[in-house]
């Protein structure tokens, strides 16, 4: 009996019916639904143990002691470390995003060599290191042919780089500008030797002249903790904070009072206070008190009002409060952390001497010179500034053949940025030791990727602003970096060995071990998040009268406006672009769309002929910055406030091409009496555009 058509149909129908009584359809549907939840592009959870490991996060200039949360060994968050006596469990807004920054798309994935304008080719480490040795061999023993620029203010890496330069026969070790460089020179003008510190925690009246101490100046988290401790919940404040600077910034907004001082008026303002304090009976045993008194007498309230824009009654009220305070402290600094002169520092710091507030609890201290890990290293007090160096390159006075850049971004973060970038271009061979593809790395001939802070050994000696000698150290949190990177110091030490330059160490970890030993610190305690501190003090100070005699009120040009760059730590630093997470807190009056927004008060805007939202060009020398206007009364008269940290041309999709770079319109001049390069008093012309 054959199977006819009808029989076949019945067989199929039977088969289908039978299938309904099996798992074939039902399980397949279920499995397909599960399969659809597992598309290959859906990220998978990393499973494993949740741990919390201490680390030193040097993403911010001061360095934060953090706890890195890891899952299965991979970092996913950073929190404060309560074991650290400085930060007491706090963390700055940059280091809080440390885990995100470890996986940043802007990281340099492997060694790269330049193969054309803006074009790079990935190469092997052995080839990259061979190229470095080859270029260094060519300049060995030739003074001026090798230069190093470092942007790390606190690390022992500076000891290694400067000692290496010395071993190569070069004195060309330069630091990126910052408060530390200027203030250390200021202390010298006052007869001291060392780095100044400020004991905010012990003061009951804190006057911050310029220093943005509660946001971006010094050891910010420690400063904020000290401030917070004076504001007990439900209780009365135990200390008063006053901010004197050109812009109502984050520090000013939480202080008890903001005194609007023009960008060029800080010294006159400080000496005006000195005049009133002396008139009220303040005396000092400093040998130059008589000269100082005579000098301060010139800064009458009326003269200060003309020079700094501060009304006489405000100055008198402030002087009275300083006089009445039991433990007053004056913090001296530039309003944007750089560019001020050593004399400006002297003017503000001299108030501490006048009030007898040096090397006392709650006062200003002078830290003794920190020990060096390598005898041949250059100390901080002798470091040269990178801006002067690149200016010399521009004029042909310096002709380096090889430049090594460590944790610095001079192509972006030096005044007259456009010209500085051109100067860099004049150097034949540039090596960038960088974690990220920043503006300087993008110009380099060889990029040697550096590890992220969670992937490396590092240390921090005396972060600027700390009141006591302080030492921090950290070790890697992860077993393997996410990029094909090597510690720059390890690379340099290996190169030194091949070049016959004896530095005495093989790895950076060894250098840090030696530094800890020299300091007298227990490295295990430090790498667990602790801090070494000491009570060592660096001697007395004079009032700096000889240097202050050079202070002269700046001649105001009615056709120009003073530039007040505004820092917010959350927006990164010269060597680090704004972390992507922090772009969420950029305000409309800082960035609108891709336009940078600059602020000025109504009277200044009226005088400049601009209105709210107007497009303008700010011009200084060959530098030009495009922005929109925001009229805001939180800016001193005759001043334009410009946010810092924008206008990146490298980095990643999150930060590139947003706003404009204020460094382009900062102009350098020589400080009278010291010859230091300064740019805190930069001026611009404003034109509609």
């Amino acid at each position, binding site marked *: 009996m054959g199977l006819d058509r009808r029989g076949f149909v019945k067989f199929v129908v039977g088969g289908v019916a039978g299938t309904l009584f099996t798992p074939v359809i039902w399980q397949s549907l279920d*499995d397909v639904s*599960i399969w659809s939840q597992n598309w290959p592009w859906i990220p998978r959870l990393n499973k494993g143990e*949740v741990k919390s490991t201490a680390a030193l996060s040097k993403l911010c200039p001061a360095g934060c002691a953090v706890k890195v949360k890891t899952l299965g060994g991979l970092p996913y968050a950073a929190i404060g470390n309560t074991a650290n006596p400085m930060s007491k469990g706090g963390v700055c807004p940059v280091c809080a995003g440390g885990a995100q920054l470890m996986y940043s798309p802007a990281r340099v994935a492997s060694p790269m060599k330049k193969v054309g304008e803006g074009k790079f080719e990935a190469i092997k480490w052995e080839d990259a290191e061979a190229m470095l040795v080859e270029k260094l061999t060519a300049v060995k023993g030739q003074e001026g042919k090798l230069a190093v620029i470092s942007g790390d203010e606190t690390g022992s890496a500076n000891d290694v780089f400067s000692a290496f330069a010395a071993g190569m026969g070069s004195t060309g070790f330069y630091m990126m500008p910052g408060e530390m460089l200027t203030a250390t020179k200021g202390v010298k003008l006052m007869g001291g030797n060392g780095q100044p510190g400020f004991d905010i925690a012990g003061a009951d009246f804190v006057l911050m002249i310029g220093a943005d101490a509660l946001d971006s100046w010094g050891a910010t988290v420690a400063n904020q903790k000290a401030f917070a401790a004076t504001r007990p919940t439900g209780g009365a404040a135990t200390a008063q904070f006053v901010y004197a600077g050109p812009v109502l910034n984050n520090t000013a907004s939480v202080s008890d009072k903001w005194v609007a001082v023009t960008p060029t008026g800080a010294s006159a303002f400080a000496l005006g206070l000195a005049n009133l304090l002396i008139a009220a009976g303040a005396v000092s045993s400093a040998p130059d008190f008589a000269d100082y008194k005579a000098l301060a007498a010139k800064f009458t309230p009326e003269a200060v009002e003309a020079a700094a824009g501060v009304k006489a009654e405000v100055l008198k009220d402030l002087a009275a409060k300083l006089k009445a305070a039991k433990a007053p402290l004056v913090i001296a600094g530039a309003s944007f952390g750089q560019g001020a002169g050593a004399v400006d520092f002297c003017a503000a710091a001299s108030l501490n001497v006048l009030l007898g507030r040096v090397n006392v609890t709650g006062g200003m201290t002078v830290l003794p010179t920190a020990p060096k890990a390598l005898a041949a290293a250059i100390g901080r007090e002798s470091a040269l500034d990178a801006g002067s160096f690149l200016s010399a390159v521009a004029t042909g006075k310096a002709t380096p053949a090889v430049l090594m850049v460590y944790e610095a971004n001079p192509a972006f973060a030096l005044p007259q940025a456009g010209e500085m970038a051109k100067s860099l271009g004049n150097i034949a061979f540039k090596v960038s030791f960088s974690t990220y593809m920043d503006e300087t790395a993008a110009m380099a001939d060889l990029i040697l990727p550096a590890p992220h802070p969670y992937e490396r050994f590092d240390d921090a000696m005396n972060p600027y602003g700390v009141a006591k000698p302080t030492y921090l150290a950290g070790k890697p949190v992860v077993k393997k970096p996410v990029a094909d990177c090597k510690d720059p110091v390890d690379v340099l030490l290996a190169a030194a060995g091949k070049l016959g330059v004896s530095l005495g160490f093989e790895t950076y970890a060894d250098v840090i071990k030696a530094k800890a030993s020299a300091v007298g610190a227990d490295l295990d305690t430090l790498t667990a998040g602790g801090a070494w501190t000491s009570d060592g003090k660096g001697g007395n100070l004079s009032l700096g009268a000889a240097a202050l005699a050079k202070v002269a009120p700046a001649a105001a040009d009615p056709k120009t406006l003073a530039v007040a760059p505004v820092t917010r730590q959350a927006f990164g630093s010269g060597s680090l672009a704004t972390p992507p997470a922090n772009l969420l807190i950029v305000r409309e009056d800082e960035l609108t769309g891709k336009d940078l927004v600059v602020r000025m008060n109504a009277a200044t805007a009226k005088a400049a002929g601009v209105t709210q939202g107007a497009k303008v060009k700010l011009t200084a020398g060959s530098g030009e910055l495009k922005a929109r206007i925001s009229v805001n009364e939180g800016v001193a008269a005759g001043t334009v406030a410009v946010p810092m940290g924008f206008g990146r041309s490298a980095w990643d999709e999150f930060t590139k091409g947003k706003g404009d770079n204020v460094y382009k319109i900062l102009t350098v001049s020589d400080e009278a009496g010291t010859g230091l390069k300064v740019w805190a008093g930069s001026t611009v012309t404003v034109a509609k555009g």
Partner: protein
Amino acid sequence: MEEKKQCKGCGGALPFVVGFVAAVIAGWVLFPGVLYSKQNQPIRFSHKVHQEQGMECASCHSFREDGSYAGLPNNEKCMECHADVVGSDPDELKYVEQYAKTGKEVPWLIYQSQPDNVLFSHKAHESFECKSCHLEVEKTDTPPVYYENRLSGYSKQTMKMWQCERCHAENGVSNACHVCHK
């Protein structure tokens, strides 16, 4: 005529029945073989031998300090005893050479791995015996074959949501979404 009609009727039902039975057999017997691929563990791990050494389940499958479950031991744990070759088992040599010495973790096949969208707390289920949910492996000399679902990618033994829900219901535990899906 009457007989012919009866035969037609039988012939008419037979193909249907044959098709029905064939489909049922294929669906229950052959389909699983097609749906699941068979795989063996990368190392023939003997739970039996380890148990004979006096070890308990918790010696390797332990809770962490924060209460989370460590699951399978990693190299660090295994190398407490197996940093070097112990005995003459070829899989022992394989473990030491391929994993212990290279630092590479053994890619164990997990019989009951749950999807990422499920948070299963072993701590909350601590009062149950392991074998209530897991394969009974403590006396096996060779690990059970791992059956991987070719469509979903999960193991045949991966517990489905209805099983979780039934147990919760039987034990008076909430079946609200957030209990397992965070």
